[in-house]
Every structure is written in C-alpha cells, then in structure tokens.
C-alpha cells in the first residue's frame, strides 16, 4: 500500500508539471504577447522594450521556471482587466463554485446510489423503469435548458426561489439541482450495473449459503464490489461539475470561477484564464489521485499496479 501511494503521488506530480507547462504556453497561443501588450499600432522599438521589460526575450523554459516559481509562491500574476492580483480574484470566486459543485455532487450521490441499488435488486420493476427514464432525460437535456425551465417554473410561475445571484443559501438551490441532475444518470447506471453483476456473482451465492441476510449481503458484500468503479467516476464527474459550472453560473448569474473564466476569455485576460485552468486542473488531479487511493483501499486488487 505504501509503495502504491508513493507511485501514485509521483504520477500526480508528473501530471501537474505537464499541465502547468501547457497552461504556461497559453500565453503564446494568440501570437506574440509583447505585441499584444504594446498594442497593434505601436512601433517596433516599443515592442522590443516591452519584451525586455516583461522578460519575454528570455528562453521559454527560463520564463516557465520563473512563472512556475511565482505560482508556487502564490503569485499568479496580475489580472489585465481588473488590475488586481489574480490570486485575490480567485479567492473570492472559488468558494462559490466549490460550494455549488460539492452540493451538486452530494445531491447526485444521494439520488443515484439508492436508486441504482433499488433498480438492480428489483430489476425490470417500476422503480427500475422510472430510473431509466430519469437517466435518459437527464443525459439528453442540456444543463442550460434545464436551468431555464427551472427559472421559468420556480422564478416566474411559482416564484419561491431566487433565479440569479447567491446572496443567501436559497440562491444555491436551483444551480445545485441542475448540476446534480446532470451528474446523476451516469452514476446511477453504474451503480445499477455494478450491483447486478455483484448480485449474480458466486461470492454472493456463498454469502447466501452462509445464511447471511438480505441487507448484509446487499451492503457488505455486493455494494462494496459495486462501488469500486463508482469512486473513479465520481471524481471525474466532480471535475466535470466544476469545469461545467461555467454554463450554470452564467444561467443563474452566480459569481463563481466558471463565470469569471468565461468573461476572462472574452476579455483576453490571459493571466486570469491561466490561473483558472491551473486551479481547476489542480483540483482535478487532486480528486483523481484521492479516488485512486480510495479505490485501492476498497479493492485490494487495485494495489497491485
């Protein structure tokens, strides 16, 4: 287990380095950054001055090392639009996105795991079919459209919830429902198929031959096997929720990371975009690493790799 942990953390560090390098390169995607900073109409000498001032004339790897060092010290540069340190900007926005994401994930798990178990145990029954309909609709419906439907229903027809902003907890209700529903189908179907496989397995027959009773068999013996793939999927889904919050935050006018990212792309505020990508990728790497460790803890066979 220790060896596994060490290897897995090494991989995480490697992936992080690659991501940071790719993120750093973003600065150069829209052409020469010195020209962009100086403005299109500026003279060649001025562009060269700016290039020297910002150190853009140095080899790219040196610039990268410099940038990475700053990032590690918590300095992600200045936002070109707000003229504020990007770190301060993110600190105000990240909690909103993380709150929505975590609550949505919690909601998705609270719906999909029990529903998946019930659907598997009473396969072909009423609940199984309802769950299938729920999954197909959830998978097919774009989040922005479902968000708009909820705004029409709960903001206009039965106006009981705020439809924009997050001044208090009520502002989180609709975004969490939209994002949570988005994450539900995949998890629910995975729990269902995992439980069906587990319940047909020889080791469940052994458990029954030992006289174990339904609840013990379901939760201790079957579910433990069925949730092994669920852990990785949940981590990936959570990452999607965070990066996918760009749509939901726009629809519900939440001042989260997603909305900031979208606006910064439009404003060509590259340092901010870089920082957002960096933070989201970092969270993603953290999640998948934790998921792998959790999987190894649940399933001893996963420790072998």
């Amino acid at each position: 287990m220790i060896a596994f942990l060490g290897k897995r953390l090494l991989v995480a560090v490697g992936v992080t380095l690659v991501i940071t390098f790719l993120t750093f390169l973003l600065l150069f995607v829209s052409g020469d950054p010195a020209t962009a900073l100086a403005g299109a109409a500026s003279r060649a000498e001025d562009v060269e001055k700016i290039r020297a001032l910002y150190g853009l004339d140095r080899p790219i790897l040196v610039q990268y090392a410099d940038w990475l060092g700053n990032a590690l010290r918590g300095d992600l540069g200045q936002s070109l639009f707000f003229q504020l340190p990007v770190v301060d900007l993110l600190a105000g926005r990240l909690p909103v996105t993380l709150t929505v994401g975590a609550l949505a994930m919690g909601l998705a798990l609270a719906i999909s795991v029990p529903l998946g178990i019930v659907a598997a145990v009473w396969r072909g029954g009423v609940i199984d079919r309802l769950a299938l309909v729920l999954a197909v609709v959830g998978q097919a419906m774009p989040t922005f459209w479902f968000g708009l439907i909820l705004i029409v229903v709960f903001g206009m027809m039965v106006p009981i919830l705020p439809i924009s902003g997050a001044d208090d907890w009520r502002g989180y209700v609709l975004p969490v429902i939209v994002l949570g529903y988005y994450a539900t189908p995949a998890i629910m179907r995975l729990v269902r198929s995992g439980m069906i496989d587990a319940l047909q397995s020889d080791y469940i027959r052994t458990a029954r031959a030992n006289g174990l009773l339904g609840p013990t068999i379901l939760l201790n013996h079957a579910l433990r096997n069925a949730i092994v793939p669920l852990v990785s999927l949940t981590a990936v889904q959570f990452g999607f929720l965070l990066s996918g919050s760009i749509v939901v935050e726009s629809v519900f006018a939440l001042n989260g990371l997603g909305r900031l990212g979208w606006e910064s792309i439009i404003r060509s505020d590259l340092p901010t975009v870089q920082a957002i990508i960096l933070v989201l990728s970092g969270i993603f790497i953290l999640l998948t690493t934790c998921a792998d460790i959790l999987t190894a803890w649940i399933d001893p066979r996963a420790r072998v790799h």
Partner: protein
Amino acid sequence: MTAAVETSVLSVRDLRVDVAVPMGTLHAVRGIDLELARGETLCLVGESGCGKSLTALALMDLLPSKATRRASRLDFVGEDLTRASRRRMADLRGAGVAMIFQEPMTSLNPVLTIGAQLAAPYIRHGKGNRAAARDRALELLERVGVPGAATRLNQYPHELSGGLRQRVMIAMTLMCQPALIIADEPTTALDVTIQAQLLKLLADLRRDFDLALLLITHDLGLVARFADRVAVMYAGEIVEQAATADLFTKPAHPYTQALLECLPTGDADGTLGTIPGVVPSLLSEPSGCAFRDRCRHAVDGCGRAAIPLTDVANGDGVAHLNRCLLDLSP
C-alpha cells in the same frame, strides 16, 4: 433400524425441481429420494445437466428464481423443511447445513479479507463475537492445512492459490459445526494433484467432525472412491444406488456400466469407452426409462411405463437399488 433413524441427518422423498425456460417447463429433477446419516458420505454422480447441482441447491433453498422445488418429505435432523419459512432456511444455511462450491476462484468475495469472510457465518449465527470468530477461523485454517494461517486471515482471496481458496471454503463450512456439508464438484476446478489431497481432507473432516457429507461430482473414478455409498443420476432421477464397492464390482444399471467402461483402465492399448447419443430433453417427462435411446440392451417394454427403483441386493445389508427392467448384473 432405530439407530439409523436417530442419526438421520437428511431424509428426502420425491424431490422435484422444475425450471421455467422460454420453451416451457424443464423437469430437471424428477423425484429423488436420499437418506444420509451422521458420519456418512453419499456421492451423487452424473454427467452435466443431470440435475445433481440443482438437487444440491434445492436442499439449500438456494435455487435460482426461475426454479421451484417440491418434495413430499424433506427432513433435516428431524425437522420438516417442506414447511420451513425462508427465514428458517436462512437460519439453517451455514449453521446446520453448509455448502462448498465448484469455483474457488470466484466463490470468495474479492474485497473482503479471508478472516472477515470466515467470521461472517459465525457472527451471523450468533456463535460468538469477532474475537471468538477469529480464534475459530485460525483453528480451522490450520486444521484444513492452510500454511501461515495467522497471516492468511488478513489476506485477500487474490493472494491465495485455487487449492488454498478451496481449503478456505472448506474451513468456512466448518465454522458453525454443521451436521451436513454439501460439496458440489469441490475439486473439479483444481489440479489433479490437489484433487486427491482435498478429497482425503474432506474424508478426514467428515470423520473428525462426525459430519454427513453429500459429495456431488461427475467423476466416478476419483471422487466416488471416497464415498460410503454412491447414487448415480441420469436425466433428473437416480438410476442406481449402492454401497461404493458394490457399485464398482457389480454395476446393475446399463448407464452405470457404460460410465464405468468410460473410465481409463491404464491398459497400454485400451481405448476409452464412450456413450453414444445425447441426454433426452426434459421439457416433457420421458415415459419409462430415460436412458433407453442410448442403451444397447433396450427392449420394447423400456418405454412403456415408469420403472421403479428396486432392491437387487442379495439381502446382505446395504440395499442395492436399480432402476431397470432387465437383470444385467455381471
């Protein structure tokens, strides 16, 4: 006779299992009688699909949902199980009657430790707490010949070989001191060298723990030799049943005779026997003898009416039951 009744562990009359299939109803087990006493080993032999595994699952009340069980009598240590509730059957499973399955590689839960799996039936049936279960598991693992038993308790199934896993399964069945162990092809999935070791172990345990052992197999050669009595099944019914030595020396039913001819003899130029034809479909119950289409002795009368099991022994103790119209004793 009274002694036999007192130590009777299992007494079954007219056990039937029907399986719902897309084409109708499969009469997979068609009226089986079994008697098993403490300390006795009965071997149920037959080829794939003859209904021997369904018989075992029916006794455990572990039949798949598409299969139904009927019996005019199903007594287990004096208790009538034909009327037992599902809960009562669950209380008996693992405690009174335990089962060893064919596939040691998949019969253990991959995400639970050996210790936890051994402890599960012990705790479930209220034999003691976790610590007591661990002691019992350790003792039994050592008894069934698992080396390094203490470390094995904390290991997972994938860390053990097939032979060791089957030893763990055997230890698991012993956790609650059952009266009956049903072993369904316990060695089929294992190396030949390990098969004999495990069968020897089962025979020793049967003696030491005063168990009744129902051994189910298709292997007339190796497995049946470890039994006191052998019952030969064909197409859902028992066609011949006798003391082991009796059956091997004086097989009376043509199917048993054909099976014995199929065993390798060790002769350098000996060719292996085969039985021509296929097992009849059991979608409708065959009239008369189910084996007659493959039988070289068949006569007109074989298909006319159901043939009863009759005792062909010369009255020297154990009955020798045979389901054949003809007297084909060698």
